[in-house]
């Protein structure tokens, strides 16, 4: 039904465009400036719950901004959300991006996955449309030299780095065995982790690879057992790390276990079962209760959409940062407010948001969780707030 509504809304917008004749950029009607903001995430498929959560976070921000009655360039502004489904598919992601460009949106919030965000970012860059991803963590996204690419979540260089140091300083490990699933996400994270762990004086006894479809890790784990590391780090998703955790314990390996945000889920809890107890994982950002305005956001969000899944607070901030830049530039024209966006210094729900020269969040934090009593318990937040 929401799909139907949004496509209906889209066709209405298209109709509006035609009836206004040649309108460039934001449409003007009855003294009110309509500013379109595109949002893209997977609204169908296995990640649909995360995609819907992103859309809700974005919508909440837009509704609140409209309620405030913002004036930009002496004109009253009404923001309009254009939400699209990219199905977490890189190809669909670029089609959505082209659609946004054709619709002349003023900015884009998205996409959810690194795999869709990276190819779409080229299209936005060529069209000069600012893009803020609330959840893509692959470092490459902001390192392609695009002036239009920003993100409000710490990237995996940060995550891998902090975890590498944490293993040395807080867990006190002297030796670590690393495994990854050879995907862009998993291997990227594992390599960042390895670099940081080595720099912190931890010996990497081995770096093994599996894939994101495997379920038998015993040969690799037996190898790791022979090297007797203090901790095992896995870069990959919960579908592998859960069963892996079981096999680690059934082989009698006593080493601790750590994985990144791909394993920091409730899915991991059920897949690993009792063997998971004591495992570490990490998520970029603060736990919602600890976010500067987290409690308040949670209340407003829950009242409208129910439980927060994951990234909706980041979507909310992404919209607000974008609108803040428009206000300071006193324009909704992408070419005018883009320089202001880069200079952002915004007090958001998730953090104080400002960007480095690449468009990455300055000084983002990572929270480490430990599995205790069958639940992920926030252990410590790493990295300084700016």
């Amino acid at each position, binding site marked *: 039904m929401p799909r139907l509504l949004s496509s209906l809304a889209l066709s209405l917008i298209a109709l509006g465009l035609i009836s206004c004749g040649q309108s460039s950029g934001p449409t003007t009607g009855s003294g009110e400036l309509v500013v379109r903001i595109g949002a893209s995430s997977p609204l169908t498929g296995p990640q649909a719950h995360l995609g819907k959560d992103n859309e809700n976070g974005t919508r909440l921000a837009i509704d609140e901004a409209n309620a405030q009655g913002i004036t930009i360039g002496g004109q009253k502004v009404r923001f309009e959300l254009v939400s699209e489904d990219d199905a977490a598919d890189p190809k669909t992601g670029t089609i959505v991006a082209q659609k946004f460009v054709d619709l002349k949106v003023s900015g884009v919030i998205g996409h959810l996955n690194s795999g869709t965000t990276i190819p779409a970012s080229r299209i936005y860059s060529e069209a000069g449309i600012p893009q803020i991803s609330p959840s893509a963590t692959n470092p490459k996204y902001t390192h392609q030299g695009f002036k239009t690419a920003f993100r409000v979540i710490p990237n995996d260089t940060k995550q891998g780095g902090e975890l590498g140091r944490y293993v040395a300083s807080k867990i006190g490990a002297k030796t670590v065995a690393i495994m990854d699933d*050879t995907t862009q996400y998993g291997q990227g994270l594992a390599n960042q982790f390895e670099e940081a762990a080595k720099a912190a004086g931890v010996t990497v006894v081995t770096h093994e690879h599996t894939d994101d*479809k495997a379920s038998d890790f*015993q*040969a690799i784990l037996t190898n790791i057992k022979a090297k007797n590391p203090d901790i095992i780090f896995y870069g990959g998703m919960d579908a592998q790390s*859960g*069963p892996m955790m079981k096999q680690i314990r*059934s082989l009698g390996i006593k080493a601790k276990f750590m994985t990144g945000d791909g394993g920091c889920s409730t*899915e991991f809890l059920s*897949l690993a079962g009792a063997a998971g107890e004591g495992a570490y994982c990490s998520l970029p950002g603060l736990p919602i209760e600890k976010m500067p305005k987290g409690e308040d956001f949670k209340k407003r969000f829950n009242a409208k959409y129910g439980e927060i899944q994951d990234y909706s607070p980041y979507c909310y901030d992404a919209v607000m940062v974008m609108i803040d830049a428009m206000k300071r530039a006193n324009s909704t024209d992408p070419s005018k407010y883009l320089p202001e966006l880069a200079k952002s210094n915004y007090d958001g729900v998730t953090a104080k948001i400002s960007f480095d020269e690449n468009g990455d969040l300055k000084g983002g934090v990572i929270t480490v969780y430990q599995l205790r009593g069958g639940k992920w318990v926030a252990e410590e937040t790493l990295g300084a707030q700016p």
Partner: protein
Amino acid sequence: MDIFLQQVINGLVQGSLYALVALGYTMVYGIIELVNFAHGEVVMVGALVGLSVIERMAARGETGWGVIALGILVAIPSCMALGLGIERIAYRPLRKAPRLAPLISAIGVSIALQQLAALIWGRNYLHYPEVLANPQFHLGGAVITQVQLVILATTGILMAVMWVVVQKTALGRAMRASAQNPAVAGLMGVNVDRIIASTFLMGSGLAAVAGVLVGTYYGVGNHTMGFMLGLKAFTAAVLGGIGSLGGAMLGGLLLGVIENLGAGYLGALTNGTIGSNYSDVFAFLMLIAVLIFRPSGLMGERGSEKV
């Protein structure tokens, strides 16, 4: 040394699971010379049916091997019905068609079953409830778990049973006769259609057992789990000599051990240039090597008695 022993134990357990599945391939191939590519999906269905049963029981607080056994007992008839249905719908009408037709039909069935399972059980990774304490035993520095022992024992027993059925019973004699020459077997009063159906029944029953054991062993089930397992088991059957019961057993165990030793020692032997991720490549290289020197597999002999 204990590491070597551990890799061999892991390999034997994994290999005996391959062998159970390989039996299904080899028996069907032996009789109608069809590579039943949907067989891996039958294993998957067995695992997921078993999972549903075990989940129900676990929710009622039941634990122990009885729960797993019940899962297997429900999975076997489900898979048998499925196997029979596949044969009736997808293969029997094509028996006189060119060789490629049933092969394509098998691939179609495989895809259809995967999608059907995705509809019934969803696309998420499902976890097998932990109903076993799974104690560990130490064996000269290596560890072997109860589940691993049960897998080895179950496979051994089932293999022996299959051998007796094929070699010592009237049904087995009819199967061997149909494999050698279906037309002549038919003239001698053997109901070939019925024999083929019973081959599918037996293969699917074994697949059900393998499915529940795989789920119990690794603790996960998913609608895609049958594909790779089926491919490996097929490889094992070819390695051992497709059409030969003993060959399926030997091929399965060998493939399991080779894979584990490959993953265990490739990295060390090549100083890290070729890592554990190449263990599959290694296993298939071995297969190619064997087939160059013995084109009909380790135990298969050209023109010999099949099944």
